[in-house]
């Protein structure tokens, strides 16, 4: 690797202050530090530093997303071939789906990273790693048939108005990936709802065999016609229509395991989201006023984006609650509201996205109350001592 390092060192002066290409300094630094962990050493404070950095952190999340991505590729192919009534092998389904998803990933990364590079250069910062995860999350929560220009627009919206205007990674209020989805959901609702967008080819009116609906379990529940509902096991494995990465609960759970073993994501948030969903599910079961309320509570965990949201979206440390006690409350309310929105608001059969975005907004408030209780504890301690002295 020495020869590569020498080459990098040779071109480095061009990008430094006053160099011919100094306008591309952030880009150069981004690529350099991507390839080589910098040679910067400690000066004051702790002389040794943990090997973990944000690149490693984000990389672990990307690895945790791989099972969902791989299964999503397979499922995309599977649903497509089902819709046209063709039989395809596992490998063919996977390959077909992968080739359909790849452009989405490329567009998401090119648009998002491009904006990050420009923003970093304007601010004179190093390029932040946050988008490594966002860039893969965005395609995974999209319907497969979403047009690329729409994806590009949504990504740009999420990165610029969701993140960069607040100061970049670490400063954002809302989860950028969910913002991208919300953007399409509200701007082009036809591409984020209905029965046609979840299966590749349906929107283009390809030859669909009779009896294939393409409706997601959630929309079946919302319309009250659950005759075509897949079984719990099918939904758990994920061979159902839905956003690319959200369908397979088992793939998501593998990702959750990776995040929990490495300690990257908060187990408290994950557990409490499921806890909140459980409580609301049971409550609605007890009321049982319509078909959707009668759906067994545990179905909510495997339908739609509940599991994906709990594992990958709610656990975003920047937009979530930052105190440990706050994380319990934050997660619980996300679970509670997700199921509530799903069942009681037929216009939004997918409640998870809105529940998380709503709680993103309230996370600082939750933290505020937790921190205030710490402050009060400290003040009370001082008062007791003063009282004793008098």
């Amino acid at each position: 690797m020495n020869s590569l390092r020498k080459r990098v060192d040779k071109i480095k002066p061009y990008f430094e202050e006053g160099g011919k290409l100094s306008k591309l300094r952030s880009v150069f630094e981004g690529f350099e530090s991507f390839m080589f962990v910098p040679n910067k050493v400690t000066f004051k404070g702790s002389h040794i530093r943990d090997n973990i950095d944000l690149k490693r952190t984000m990389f672990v999340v990307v690895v945790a997303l791989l099972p969902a991505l791989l299964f999503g590729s397979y499922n995309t192919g599977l649903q497509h071939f089902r819709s046209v009534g063709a039989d395809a092998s596992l490998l063919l389904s996977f390959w077909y789906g992968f080739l359909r998803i790849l452009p989405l990933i490329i567009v998401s990364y090119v648009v998002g990273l491009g904006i990050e590079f420009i923003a970093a250069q304007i601010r004179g910062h190093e390029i932040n790693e946050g988008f490594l995860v966002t860039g893969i999350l965005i395609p995974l929560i999209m319907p497969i048939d979403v047009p690329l220009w729409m994806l590009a627009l949504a990504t740009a919206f999420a990165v610029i108005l969701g993140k960069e205007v607040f100061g970049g990674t670490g400063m954002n209020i809302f989860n950028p990936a969910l913002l991208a989805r919300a953007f399409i959901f509200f701007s082009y609702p036809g591409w984020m709802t209905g029965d046609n967008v979840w299966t590749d080819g349906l929107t283009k009116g390809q030859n669909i065999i009779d009896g294939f609906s393409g409706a997601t379990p959630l929309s079946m529940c919302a319309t009250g016609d659950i005759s075509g509902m897949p079984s719990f096991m099918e939904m758990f494995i994920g061979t159902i229509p839905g956003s690319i990465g959200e369908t397979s609960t088992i793939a998501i759970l593998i990702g959750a395991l990776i995040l929990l073993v490495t300690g990257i994501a908060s187990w408290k948030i994950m557990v409490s989201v499921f806890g909140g969903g459980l409580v609301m599910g049971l409550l609605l079961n007890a009321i049982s006023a319509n078909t959707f309320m009668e759906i067994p509570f545990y179905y909510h965990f495997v339908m739609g984006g509940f599991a994906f949201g709990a594992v990958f979206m709610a656990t975003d440390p920047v937009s979530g609650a930052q105190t440990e006690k706050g994380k319990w409350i934050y997660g619980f309310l996300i679970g509670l509201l997700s199921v509530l929105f799903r069942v009681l608001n037929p216009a939004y059969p997918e409640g998870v996205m809105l529940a998380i975005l709503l709680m993103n907004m309230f996370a600082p408030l939750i933290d505020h109350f937790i921190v205030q209780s710490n402050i009060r504890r400290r003040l009370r301690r001082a008062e007791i001592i003063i009282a004793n002295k008098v």
Partner: protein
Amino acid sequence: MSRTVRLKRGYNIPIKGEAEKIIAGESNPIRYGVKPVDFPGLTPKLEVKPGDRIKAGSPLFHDKKAPEIKFTSPVSGDVISVERGERRRILEIVIEKRGNDHIDFGNADPSSLSREQITEKLLLSGLWPAVRQRPYHIIAKPGDTPKSIFISGFDTAPLAPDYDFIMDNSPEQFFKTGVSAIKKLTEGKVHLVLKKDKTKTQEKYNIDGVEISYFSGPHPAGNVGIQIHHLDPVNKGEVVWYINFQDVFAIGNLFEEGVYKPERIIALTGSEVMNPRYYRTLSGCSVAPMIRDNIKSWNLRYISGNVLTGTKINADGYLGYYDSQVTVIPEGDNYEFFGWLLPGADKLSFSKTFLSGIFPKKKFEPDTNFHGGERAFVVTGQYEKVLPMDIYPMFLLKAIIAGDVDQMENLGIYEVAEDDFALCEFICPSKIEIQSVIREGIDLMIKEMS
């Protein structure tokens, strides 16, 4: 009744190079250095110039804002240079040892002296700077009355010296006399905090009038700041003092024999030391003789103190005023190809994101590389895992960065010092210089309150 505090949160960084429990010998170097930079917030005013002949205990400089606080020479000899840094800031006063002259401060039984007499003796001899205070982690103000005084009887920092071993090799009487002098400085309790593992040495600490408490748990359980937080927390307007373990002996020595003799048994540690062992020496000694012919390689980082809170020194630098340890580790000024992507069976990390996470017993040889670039706060809930205090670290840090003095006060700035946050800095994936942030916050607080 002694109290026991069991701490769960914290981290013992597994590094190679612990000192073997052998005193390798006395280290009597020719050169000694006293460094004003060891004392945060101090503006030194020199009392000597190069060429002056001085005795052990002669004042070298004093605090410009509090001239009664003197800093004295550990040995007799000649002042050979005053090293200055940027903007003529005094870095160190170098003394070449000659003879054994010392200033006689007069021996006395502390129990027969008044608080003022004890304070005066400490001030004159140069031992007063050993007394520090919370809030702010600075040298105590002689006029204050602390609500209690703490002595931590163990050190949990990486490769730290074993205080039991030091106690067994030091004059017990000095410790007792030291404590009886310290007792006079407060109307409250003198807390001696010991590690919760009944050792034979601990019987020696049954001294009249000392409140013994036990702490268990990983680093920073041995930090006096953590101990104060759990036993007698500092509220606004209150002051708690603390004294390093080995300075208690030096204070005892002052009253027993009337001399300033800051003896230290120090641990020479770190992965790059051939024979990590203990040495008997004096505060401010040159580390060169210990290190010469005792290191494994070149391009090394020499640290007075431990890897978390110590000060970078040269190979011929001097032991810091508050340090009982010298650590030598490799520098890390090299590029690592896709270092963040490798499985990393040999990469030290508090997180479990590297392969090394599955070998809990493994010890590492970390270097001084940052392992990444500085970023904004992203990951949450990590600092709490290594800070056993009822304090919200990230919120306090953000309050400091924002310069919000009221909020800093609310969130506990009076209770913290940079050492307590050293582990947070170590594990921080955003590579934020947390100890510097804390010190900036403390400096701002001092400015606002004066």
